[in-house]
């Protein structure tokens, strides 16, 4: 009887998550183009990763994106939520405006960004030209492209953090803030010593969530730069995609995916262990 309830779901998850996960570990020790016979090659794919400049570049780009995107989205979400927490005229408008981009798909967001940052037609370069400044390459400039992609991702992702923080702020006991204020604390002091400590668990949650999102960056890159210009925006997932589906090297792609998995695990486990040691219950 009980298996009638849980059986179908468990079967699908075993077939489409657990089994492929184990298989991808095996694939990472093989050389296979998907057509001929797979050949066991032990650690060859991993040793190629270690000596592959493209892979280091992918790691570097992903790390740069993560290191900027995660803190800025957390800090920005916190500040905007704090400004919206107490009733304010137009509050619903502000909240909606900042959250709406989250609903747009990564594909639509990427294509829109191509237009906004276009050298000739884009509003930003037109504004620069209007101010008498030089037009910028943005997504076409290898030095600027990854920073532009961070900006695009923040546009799409900030609303999520704002909404999560806003919800958490509703749970801060109002009488505590009120008491502190009556004792003469400034609003910054109230926020620092009363509100923020209550927000630590949600901060850990948002940090873990956005780190996972950042490490998996792919869709926006695919619909803006396709990893270019000259490879300047290739990320780890792009490396996996490129090796498996453009170069038909499933083993090499799987090895890259395993590294992504390990990095994700280590980082999220580290963040959670840190929060546990400081007695923050995030999950």
């Amino acid at each position, binding site marked *: 009887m009980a298996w009638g309830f849980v059986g*179908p779901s468990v079967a699908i*998850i075993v077939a489409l998550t657990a089994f492929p996960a184990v298989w991808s570990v095996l694939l990472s020790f093989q050389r296979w183009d998907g057509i001929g016979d797979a050949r066991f090659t032990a650690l060859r794919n991993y040793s190629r990763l270690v000596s592959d400049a493209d892979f280091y570049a992918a790691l570097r780009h992903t790390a740069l994106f993560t290191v900027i995107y995660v803190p800025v989205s957390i800090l920005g979400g916190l500040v905007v939520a704090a*400004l919206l927490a107490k009733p304010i005229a137009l509050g619903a*408008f*502000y909240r909606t405006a900042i959250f709406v981009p989250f*609903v747009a798909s990564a*594909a*639509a967001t990427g294509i829109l960004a191509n237009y906004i940052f276009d050298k000739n037609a884009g509003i930003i370069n037109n504004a620069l030209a209007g101010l008498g400044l030089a037009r910028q390459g943005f997504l076409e400039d290898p030095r600027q492209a990854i920073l532009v992609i961070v900006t695009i991702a923040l546009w799409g992702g900030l609303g999520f953090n704002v909404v999560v923080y806003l919800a958490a702020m509703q749970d801060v006991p109002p009488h505590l803030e009120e008491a502190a204020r009556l004792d003469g604390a400034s609003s910054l002091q109230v926020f620092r010593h009363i509100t923020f400590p209550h927000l630590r668990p949600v901060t850990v949650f948002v940090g873990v969530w956005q780190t996972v999102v950042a490490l998996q960056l792919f869709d926006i890159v695919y619909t803006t730069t396709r990893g270019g210009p000259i490879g300047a925006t290739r990320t780890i997932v792009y490396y996996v995609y490129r090796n498996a589906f453009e170069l038909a090297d499933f083993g090499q792609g799987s090895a890259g995916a395993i590294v992504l998995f390990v990095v994700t695990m280590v980082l999220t486990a580290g963040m959670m262990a840190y929060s546990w040691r400081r007695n923050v219950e995030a999950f």
Partner: protein
Amino acid sequence: MPVGSRSASGRARPSVRHLVLMPLALLFLLPLEQMLLASFMTPAEINAYPPTIIPSRLQLDGYIKLFTEAPVLRWLGNSLAVVVIAVSAQLVLCSLAGYGFARLRFRGRNVGFVMLLATIMIPTQLLMIPTYIIFAKVGWLDTLAAAFVPWLVSTFGIFLMRQFFLSVPVELEEAARIDGAGTFRTFWGVILPLARPALATLAVFTLLGAWNDLLWPLITISNQDWYTIQLGLASFQGQRRTDWSLLMAGNVVATLPLLVAFLVAQRQFVATMTLTGMK
């Protein structure tokens, strides 16, 4: 303590908050406004300098090209089918499994649930290569199945429903059982109707994920007939790099359904985010 000191040392005055929030809100809306306007402009207007602020008239060329030069209606239909299948399947499968793990007694329940939860840690990207191979072997490449099968059930959904069912008082089920209802009838007739908020949350989350998904269709579908709207957009981006009115019209068409759904059901959307955010 004098009454006046509260406003002096109180929180930031509304005018200061508006000073930050208004420019930020407008900055966030600007790209969407640009997208909408460009979809109604001629190429000449789009490329003009100084830039065109408001199109001279509602130029529909972009939309006409969009629907005549590519099977966009079919792509929208494909996406709709994927979403309907994904949402229905998740509502049924996740609530059944969630109830099973919350309430029914069977061997291996707790171990099974913990192992299930562990799969949340596995990133989709780790699965994409083996899943591609599996789909190739069973002949699902270039079919709609490739786009919806990965969305049929989710560990997150099972977890969400289980947490909800745990919060329902056991007495309700005992009363139903005393009245002679079997396990399934108790679940279907008594417990599931109470779960509407959790089901709505699950539906919203699945809708958002399945409609906006690019990764699965991208790697498994190459026949235009089975493109989803997101994959169609991505293919335009490759072939029509600067045909802005067409690209922006495509963006509007692909984004509008969710945007309308969001504005209509904003409360539920926000509740969803909150629920996934904490609790």
